[in-house]
């Protein structure tokens, strides 16, 4: 580490908030993806002003800065591929304001999702996106990756709740976007530009979130299907029913088999299972909605439909879905958890396509996910120390992305592009769109110091980069 830079960073953040120790450098080399690369040092800023001074300094000295929350991202967006300074925002963790009358909460970026949830609970309010990593992930990270979760179908994702931001630009200038008002059409929507920008355009230092009253009643049901087409048709038909379920999750056969092999849940070994939840404020209301959904299940050849009659029964129906990730995480030493997303009418096609890809490459792919918003999680299981396996995984991923795009879908519904999907950006975005994205990046970060090497924004990476999902340093 350059002595002048080190001294300046310590002067800005304090000696307790700076490290170049090996243990920190190793830990900041990774996120939840298979990528890794060493940073030069780590800084824990405490204020927007400190972030501003760090950015101005790094910009002047041409040192990359990688903003980081809890490091739970699955696409490598927090991995410092070009080295540089890790800016860990987790110590900026104050909830600044909760205003029920304005229906908003103002938070620092390091606040953990679950802590906001806990603070809103007593008011009967919540911040709906509910990412699976919510117990650990930070709201800054949720904003930077536009995080979503099981309730996307009804409640949308992070982007639908961000009213305003304070952002430090790569040159150190501090900017406010958006408004605390519920509505605003004042100027370009800069707020949305930063949501999901994966830390490539600015460092978010304050977030104003819209919050919702929390529904107090739910109904839950589980249906099994002996073939995928029926399950897929049921998903589409639910959309026609006029009911928007708060949860509509699907488990594919490979996932069901894996769960049976590794737990004592003893699930029926069918082609697909759909788990539906409706929410509202009275049981009558949620049961009414659920009755409509169950009607759709029956008329689409569901084998067996179970509706929970108590909270405990609902918990039981959720067990298979909730165990999926942990079961699949233990089968092989490595996995890639994709998040391709298609229009809801194509969910069955996507599932069938995934099975074909699995057969073609001779690699295990187990799928579960959010059928209600078309966002599936094919989890490719492989041994990262076996080059043949790694090659198969890479080929299968590439096919998966092509499949999603061919179904008018997208590479990623909620995990982001990062490093993993950067080579596939041009599969989804036409050259003009890529040019506009790169132009925006150059406008805000002309010296390319903020999280470089991500999202195919570096012009020089435009061609010739090969897809890589393998452990970068393995």
């Amino acid at each position, binding site marked *: 580490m350059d002595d002048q830079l080190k001294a300046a960073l310590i002067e800005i953040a304090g000696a307790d908030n700076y490290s170049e120790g*090996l243990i920190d450098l190793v830990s900041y080399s990774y996120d939840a993806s298979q990528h890794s690369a060493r940073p030069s040092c780590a800084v824990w800023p405490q204020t927007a002003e400190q972030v501003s001074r760090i950015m101005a300094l790094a910009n002047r000295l041409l040192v990359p800065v990688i903003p980081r929350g809890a490091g739970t991202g699955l696409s490598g967006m927090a991995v410092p591929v070009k080295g540089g300074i890790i800016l860990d925002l987790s110590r900026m963790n104050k909830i600044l304001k909760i205003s029920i009358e304005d229906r908003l909460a103002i938070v620092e970026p390091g606040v953990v999702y679950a802590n906001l949830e806990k603070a809103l609970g007593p008011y009967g309010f919540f911040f709906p996106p509910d990412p699976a990593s919510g117990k650990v992930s930070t709201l800054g990270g949720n904003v930077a990756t536009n995080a979503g979760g099981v309730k996307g179908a009804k409640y949308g994702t992070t982007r639908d709740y961000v009213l305003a931001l304070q952002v430090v630009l790569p040159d150190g200038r501090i900017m406010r976007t958006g408004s605390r008002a519920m509505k605003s059409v004042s100027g370009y929507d800069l707020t949305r530009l930063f949501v999901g920008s994966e830390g490539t355009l600015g460092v978010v230092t304050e977030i104003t979130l819209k919050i919702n009253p929390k529904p107090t009643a739910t109904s839950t049901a589980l249906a099994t299907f002996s073939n995928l087409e029926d399950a897929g048709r049921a998903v589409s038909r639910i959309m026609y029913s006029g009911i928007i379920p708060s949860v509509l999750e699907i488990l594919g056969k490979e996932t069901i088999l894996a769960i049976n092999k590794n737990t004592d849940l003893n699930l029926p070994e069918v082609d697909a299972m759909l788990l539906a939840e409706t929410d509202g404020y009275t049981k009558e209301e949620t049961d009414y909605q659920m009755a409509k959904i169950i009607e759709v299940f029956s008329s689409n050849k569901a084998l067996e439909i179970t509706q929970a009659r108590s909270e405990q029964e609902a918990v039981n129906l959720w067990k298979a879905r909730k165990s999926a990730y*942990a079961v699949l995480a233990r089968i092989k030493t490595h996995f890639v958890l994709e998040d391709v997303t298609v229009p809801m009418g194509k969910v069955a096609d996507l599932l069938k396509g995934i099975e074909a890809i699995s057969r073609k490459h001779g690699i295990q792919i187990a799928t579960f996910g959010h059928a209600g918003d078309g966002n599936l999680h094919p989890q490719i299981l492989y041994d990262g120390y076996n080059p043949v396996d790694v090659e198969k995984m890479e080929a299968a991923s590439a096919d998966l992305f092509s499949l999603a795009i061919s179904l008018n879908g997208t590479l990623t519904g909620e995990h982001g592009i990062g490093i993993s999907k950067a080579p596939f950006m041009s599969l989804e975005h036409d050259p003009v769109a890529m040019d506009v994205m790169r132009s925006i990046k150059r406008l805000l970060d002309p010296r390319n110091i903020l999280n470089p090497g991500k999202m195919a924004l570096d012009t020089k990476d435009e061609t010739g980069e090969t897809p890589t999902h393998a452990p970068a340093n393995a």
Partner: protein
Amino acid sequence: MEAKYDFEKKFREQILQCSRCGFCQAVCPVYGSTLRPALNARGKMLLLKEVMDGKIDLGEDLIESLFQCTTCASCAANCPSGVNVPEIIKQARKDMVHIGSCHPAFVGMNDVLQKSTNIYAEDELPDFGRKRDKKAAFVYFVGCVGSYREDESTEETLDLMDRLAVDYTLISEVCCSGVLEDVGYNLNPKLARENLDRMFSTGAGAVITGCPYCFRTFTHRKEYDELKEKGIKVLHISQFLKDFDFGVKTGKKVTYHDPCDLGRHCGIYEEPRATIKKIASDFVEMQHHHADSLCCGAGGGVRGAFAKNSLSMARRRLKEAEEVGAEILLTECNSCVHNLVNAKLRKQNIKIYNTTAFINELVNKIDKV
């Protein structure tokens, strides 16, 4: 390639199974107090992975992370990939000791337990004014913290057992030395032998421990297998007391802190609560309880080696007790009592006791009236 260290031979698969999801950050007490991911379970698994990959080597640089774990096991309890982090850490610490990289506090602890009879190198074992090594139905095994640091609490516990007319004896006990297994060394078999011989000579059919860690050692370590072989039961004091009636009540708001060694490590959650509910009409759980309980920060040698962070973990726990408005915090571990009392700020009015000590205080009050 042949594995260089024992941790790799034993745990390679498990370390690779860590999917780096980071969910342990939600529960790791060291992370919670420092917000430094290098100290979290994931950070530790990444260090060991890089050692296995040949990218870094075990050595001094890793001490601050690998030796800073209270072995509270909440990471293991919450790991989607089923990685048993505390066991891996314990083995890695042994490997580090083997190559001469160990935190000086633990080198010192091991030295002490090769020469002395207790972790504090104290010369004289207190007898609490009671005759030791008698014939009795039960042995009461105090443990180092209860003997030398929380002796007042032990005194109260013994008074209570006297009132209950329990036929017990203290023994000329030495450290169970189980803690050495946690900090990179091995349980000292000579000390185990001394304890066993003295327990046997009392003719007791059961050993009651005041310390959850001693309880764990006596029930889980092979050096103490003779207890089981001879049909001698081992009970933690909370298990022993659950069937007694104390004839006292408190109207104060009481909460209970699950010691990691008793709860997550031994699955004892309900007996302590059964007793407390008998004596407290206003019992409240903290935000984290039972298997989700938050560590007091004392375990795994962290109190000795990283005192500042250990206290800050205890403060987080006390904050939870304050948040639920508890006036009395009860626990079943002298080490937890010791750390929580040390961490308590003057402005905090909450009182911290071992359950036995608290009950005895209530009984004393009635006697005085």
